[in-house]
């Protein structure tokens, strides 16, 4: 892909081989792809990016499969990025999300790509943000990102997605689990999957109760300002409070994010979830919060990219030996850690 304009043209036209190759180059850290990404920049920002996250085995892949079907019935094209973990020991991975999605393999309006985390923590792969941009530039109307099965604190998806669908299932723990900080704070649309199992209604009640409490606690001027509270914690609450005075069908009468039951296996309840995602999308656009979220997310991305570039400078042999000498200084008490960092920082910048 040395011919940048040609590669960009093929990606814009949605050629799956060009998309696939570009995403591999991003994933492999091939610097040659950067020029292509630059050429595509003006074509991005159109797709609505939907994150789907939740614990292992909660049915995320099956739900994504059904979301794709629903979107296709509505005449929209869909790109899917499905992330599974890499082995921390061998670097290998089994990427199995696709098994549930193969019914779309022959549909030209759908592109599905599996990605391994390759050592990246936080529930995503390091390549996923740029891969999503490639799909965006290729003209897909919706980009669905399925995270790895998450625990309590892998919330990176919130820095990438316009709308986060948080999937829970019955039987994972008591009501304290939904009160904990972290994953339960990031949902814009809450889904209780496997709703044919015992305990689904209880999980719905617990999530609603958690959201109500958050709304009460979050209804401060700060939460409504959309700046401070627009950060991770409570961002949906700030949103919901604004939404209470808006009218586009997202959330309930009190401005709470929707909590919906699904049985992904049969597709039951999937339509209303997609309705809610679409209502959230409309609400984000109408209230100006889409721009706010994207500003915040690009801010995170810039910080990350800067950090990576600094770390890359530390990778040169000279820098490594400099770092080693400073480490020795710290151990021998000639300098403290803060002073050593000052020295490094001066030299790197």
């Amino acid at each position, binding site marked *: 892909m040395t011919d940048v304009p040609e590669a960009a043209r093929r990606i814009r036209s949605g050629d799956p081989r060009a998309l*696939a190759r570009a995403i591999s180059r991003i*994933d492999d850290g*091939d610097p040659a792809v950067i020029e292509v990404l630059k050429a595509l920049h003006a074509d991005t920002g159109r797709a609505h990016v939907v994150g789907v996250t939740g614990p292992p085995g909660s049915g995320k892949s099956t739900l994504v499969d059904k979301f794709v079907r629903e979107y296709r019935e509505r005449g929209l094209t869909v790109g899917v990025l499905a992330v599974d973990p890499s*082995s921390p020991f*061998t670097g290998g991975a*089994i*990427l199995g999300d696709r098994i549930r999605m193969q019914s779309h393999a022959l549909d030209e309006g759908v592109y599905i790509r599996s990605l391994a985390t390759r050592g990246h923590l936080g529930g995503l792969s390091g390549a996923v943000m740029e891969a999503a941009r490639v799909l965006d530039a290729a003209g897909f109307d919706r980009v669905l990102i399925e995270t790895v099965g998450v625990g309590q604190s892998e919330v990176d998806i919130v820095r990438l997605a316009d709308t986060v669908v948080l999937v829970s299932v019955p039987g994972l723990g008591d009501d304290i689990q939904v009160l904990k900080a972290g994953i339960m704070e990031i949902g814009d649309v809450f889904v209780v999957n496997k709703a044919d199992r015992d305990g689904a209604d209880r999980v719905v009640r617990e999530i609603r109760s958690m959201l109500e409490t958050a709304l009460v606690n979050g209804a401060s001027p700060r939460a409504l300002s959309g700046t401070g509270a627009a950060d991770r914690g409570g961002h949906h609450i700030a949103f919901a409070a604004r939404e209470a005075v808006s009218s586009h069908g997202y959330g309930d009468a009190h401005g709470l994010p929707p909590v919906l039951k699904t049985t992904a296996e049969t597709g039951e309840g999937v339509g209303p979830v997609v309705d809610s995602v679409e209502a959230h999308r409309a609400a984000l656009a109408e209230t100006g919060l889409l721009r706010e979220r994207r500003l915040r997310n690009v801010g995170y991305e810039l910080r990350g990219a800067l950090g990576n570039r600094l770390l890359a400078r530390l990778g040169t042999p000279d820098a490594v030996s400099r770092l080693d000498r400073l480490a020795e200084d710290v151990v021998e008490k000639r300098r403290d850690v803060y002073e050593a960092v000052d020295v490094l920082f001066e030299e790197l910048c």
Partner: protein
Amino acid sequence: MDRKIRVLVAKPGLDGHDRGAKVIARALRDAGMEVVYTGLRQTPEQIVQAAIQEDADVIALSILSGAHNHLFPRVMELLSEKGVNDVLVIGGGVIPEDDIPFLKKAGIAEIFGPGTPTKATIDFIRANLKR
């Protein structure tokens, strides 16, 4: 740059189980490869589309039902129709010795029968990648 080998493990046809495919998937994973598994009962068309979308370096076909002489060459045919010529395609499962020359002629690079040590497959992939 950290180039990873990506392998699509696929089961064409109507086999009822995929134990062998899972064993090989696991072995390739442990050899540091990224293995995309597509599950049972895939058509050659689905396999080829998945390989393109996943940018697979290798397609590993596994079959038990006896339909290999039809399905394996069909995969090769579709790949060439799509202009994909840089993917290594290998096969495994229950395949009689006598059929192997025909399959190789159709473009399957190697056939690994029951009892093949997984290391042989791994070494073959590493030595024969087309890109």
